[in-house]
């Protein structure tokens, strides 16, 4: 019992320290191989947008709130790109069961996002994503500004406000 208490105290202290540090640092993307929609390999350490903000959104074809979120982003994407230079990268966590549905789904909807397949959740795990949808916003210097899980209609307004803040 004593040991357990020690363990939890230790963990708490460490996690707090770690949390503070994680906040301070520039985010470096983990090096994980994922695929493009036409089957090429892409390494996630190469994610970049020439000093402009990046939004990474984890989703799946079977996730209704994810789709609603990406439709809402799509409605605003042209404006956001023009105003802030934002690039949206969407990472599908569909596994081998549904991975081949992704390209017809994304193109069928006419989405212009940079789109990747994370078939065995390697990148998802490396980014500590638990459930989808989960989005990360990085500013032009690569600092993690905001993350967001779940989706409610209107969430995109909060994102837009943040985008304006970091672009100024």
């Amino acid at each position, binding site marked *: 019992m004593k040991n357990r208490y020690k363990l939890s105290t230790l963990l708490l202290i460490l996690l707090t320290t*770690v949390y503070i*540090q994680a906040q301070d640092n520039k985010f470096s993307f983990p090096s994980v191989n994922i695929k493009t929609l036409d089957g090429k390999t892409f390494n996630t350490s190469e994610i970049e947008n020439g000093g402009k903000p990046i939004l990474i959104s984890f989703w799946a074809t079977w996730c209704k709130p994810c789709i609603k979120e990406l439709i809402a982003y799509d409605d605003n994407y042209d404006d956001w790109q023009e105003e802030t230079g934002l690039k949206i990268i969407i990472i599908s966590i569909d596994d081998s069961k549904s991975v*081949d*549905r992704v*390209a017809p789904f994304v*193109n069928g909807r006419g989405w212009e996002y940079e789109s990747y397949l994370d078939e065995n959740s*390697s990148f998802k795990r490396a980014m500590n994503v638990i459930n989808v949808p989960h989005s990360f916003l990085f500013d032009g210097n690569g600092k993690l500004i905001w993350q967001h899980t779940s989706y*409610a209609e209107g969430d995109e*307004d909060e994102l837009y406000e943040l985008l304006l803040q970091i672009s100024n």
Partner: protein
Amino acid sequence: MIKKVLVFVFLIFQTTHFFAQENKSGQIHGNFGFVGQTYKEDSLIGAPFVAEKFLMNAYSNVLFTKGGFTAGVRFETYLNALEGYDKRYNGIALPYRFISYQHEKLNFLLGNFYEQFGNGLILRTYEDKDLGIDNSLDGARVIYQPIKGITIKGLVGKQRFYYEHGPGIVRGIDGEFYLNDFLQKISDKKLHVTLGGSFVSKFQPDDDPVYILPENVGAGAGRVSISHGGFLFKSEYAYKSQDPSADNGYIYKTGEALLLSMNYSKKGFGLFLNAKRVDNMSFRSDRNAKLTDLNINNIPATAKTHTYALATLYPYASQPNGEMGMQGEFNYRFNRNSFLGKKLRMFLTVGFSQVNSIKKTFLSDGDGYTSDFFEIGDELYFRDIFVELEMKFSKKMKGIFHAYHQEYNKDVLQGLSGYGIVKSNIFVADINYKLKPKHNLRTELQLLTTKQDKGNWLMVLMEYSIAPHWFFTVFDMYNYGNPKPDKRIHYYSGNFAYSNKGTRIQLGYGRVWEGIICVGGVCRNVPASNGFTINITSSF
């Protein structure tokens, strides 16, 4: 044990702490998940008495990276495991830890890892918290990328089996070659060709007093992926040597599987077709293992994963012992210049899937049966036809409408007898109404009609959300058409959730119906329960 864990954690954190201080490029991130539930006996719905009254599952992942170095651990605590999860999880442990290092073209990993070769027909280790599955390998892995376009992976390990290891040793090698990068002859920039091949072998001692069982079982697979413009074709064939197991009734027949998949898409239009044949392809690192234990491979299910509750009441799961299936889906976004496209923003999806048995001619020798590769079996396992329509009525109101026809072989898919095929029709309407900026009311109406099994169901769900933080949800799922009048039960539930940045906290109360949840074609039984729930997830 706890002392060891403590020392290990302490060391890792000390090192990482030191690194993080010295050099800003060291990073620590992680996540935390907690699910707890109180249990009240409810004889009406069949919720059993739970002696602990409160059960919980929790975990935390911590990852440290600096340059090419990564270390990770996961703590897990089940005191005791939630109903529906295997009780062998009960306890506190550190069942997942690894270190890896990237040295130029080589990546070394020691410890636990998740890996998939091709489509997973002969190797896929993965983790799914909802299903209570973690078949990670614990051992060593090397990934080598000698030149651009070539990736070679080699691995050896034992699989996680709750807090122990499975009895078998798994060895595997996989190569993938992206031809465009080293064949100058492919001048067509739109054409991409990838070839892959893999081999996996497992070793398990033969301790059977009577039978001579193969101690080494090998499986090989080859795959191709060709894309051109909006067109993609993929195929993989896998073969497995003699592998008598509890799954196949200890027969000596070899196994095989074939996957074919193609899709075509351009802006506003998408088509997907897929076919599969599987024969005796269960592959585990313990020949006596059952259910979700110690699977080395993963056969993808030939069916769409639906999400509305009543459309998932009768879910399909892969049958590694033998199945033949086909599925297709067509997506269409109405032209943005037409009335339906511009005014209503209409998007249509139509699809189907069907899975049958394979034809088997039974033999009296050790092979058990023979099967003609091209002949489809007579027995239907699953059929699903669906139409989905999305539209926007006005700036304030959006709607999603689904209709399904499903046929579900309850005997085969749940390992029962005497139920036969459950035929159901399902209708869903999901309406979103914006009351004022950031305030939304979402209403789901769902109806399932069937003459078999438990009869008709009706479900009403209402969710009020205030972006970006608050959700309030209530629903009632009512089995009004149950042939037994005393089983016409309301399964009601209320939840509220608060979401902020990477953290989400959800509190709820409700009755849970006895059913099956499936993710990726793998399913688990969820027993009936009645109680309060708390669910916390956080990423940092």
